[in-house]
């Protein structure tokens, strides 16, 4: 069943509906708008999963062979998530947090 949901989410038609539903109000993926089933949640996860891969393909960030098989798709997504995690952990940009407003700080420094 999970494989079939993946195949469905991977289809261009499904991806087109997914993108359209995000942009255009009135286009819905499901008849219900609350109380989603396990299948529906799984479908949404895979729609997002394949959307991400298609975007990276369009940006030439990955070889077209990524879509040859599920092993490639899973491997690439795992690698990409790991890269994003590493990037987040090594982000050394200064985080300027002051509770005191700038002008008052300058006054105090004098």
């Amino acid at each position, binding site marked *: 069943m999970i494989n079939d949901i993946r195949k469905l989410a991977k289809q261009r038609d499904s991806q087109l509906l997914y993108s359209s539903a995000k942009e255009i109000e009135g286009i819905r993926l499901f008849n219900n708008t609350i109380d989603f089933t*396990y299948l529906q949640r799984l479908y949404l996860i895979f729609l997002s999963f394949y959307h991400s891969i298609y975007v990276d393909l369009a940006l030439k960030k990955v*070889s077209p062979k990524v879509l040859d098989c599920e092993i490639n798709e899973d491997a690439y997504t*795992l690698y990409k998530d790991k890269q994003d995690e590493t990037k987040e952990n090594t982000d050394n940009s200064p985080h300027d947090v002051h509770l005191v407003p700038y002008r008052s700080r300058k006054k105090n420094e004098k």
Partner: protein
Amino acid sequence: MDNLKQTSMKEEEAKKIIKETHDNYNLFKIAEMVKDNKIPFSFNNANYRVRLLTIKDRDELDELRKRELGRLLQDKNILSTPEIIRLYRERGIIDLDEIGNKIEQLNKQRTKVQLSLGEALSKSEGEVILESYQDEIKNFDSQIEVLETQRNSYLELSMENHLVLFVYKVIAWLSLEKKEGENWIRAFYKIEDFVNAPEELIEKSVIYSGYIQLLK
């Protein structure tokens, strides 16, 4: 000879078309199941559906689950997972914890190869490199599948597994509705009637309710 070759090619094409038609039909059925939060089906000329559990259903499920757990805990013939693992190890039959550790190790090694494959794809490496990583991953998958099947078969009769199967049965019973006129009503008011229903109806209810119900 050419005729034979042509006939063989036509047969291959026909098989391909049949498979594609079959796959497309399967996907069509899945698409129908996904589009709503109920799954309708028919059986013996009657209309049924499975739907998500209501809060009242969940309370009923919890009550039945507690009762079943109490019953299982008092039955000394039914062993828990840790007891089964301990007994198999003490009798020198098999060490299921060790199998669990092997599975964990294999999964870690598999993840490392997956990351290498992912990197190779992002760098558009050649087919040979990609295939070697894919083969390694398939090899890990086979080993993990064998070990998991082996472990699960030894733990099949555990108390915990029994409770899970009981919960699936109750969920199927609670989520199954039958159409009477314009209304949908619970198909079976007693679980005893549900378990005595035709096997095909029970099977469909269990499978479809498993598809819709996110077990937390």
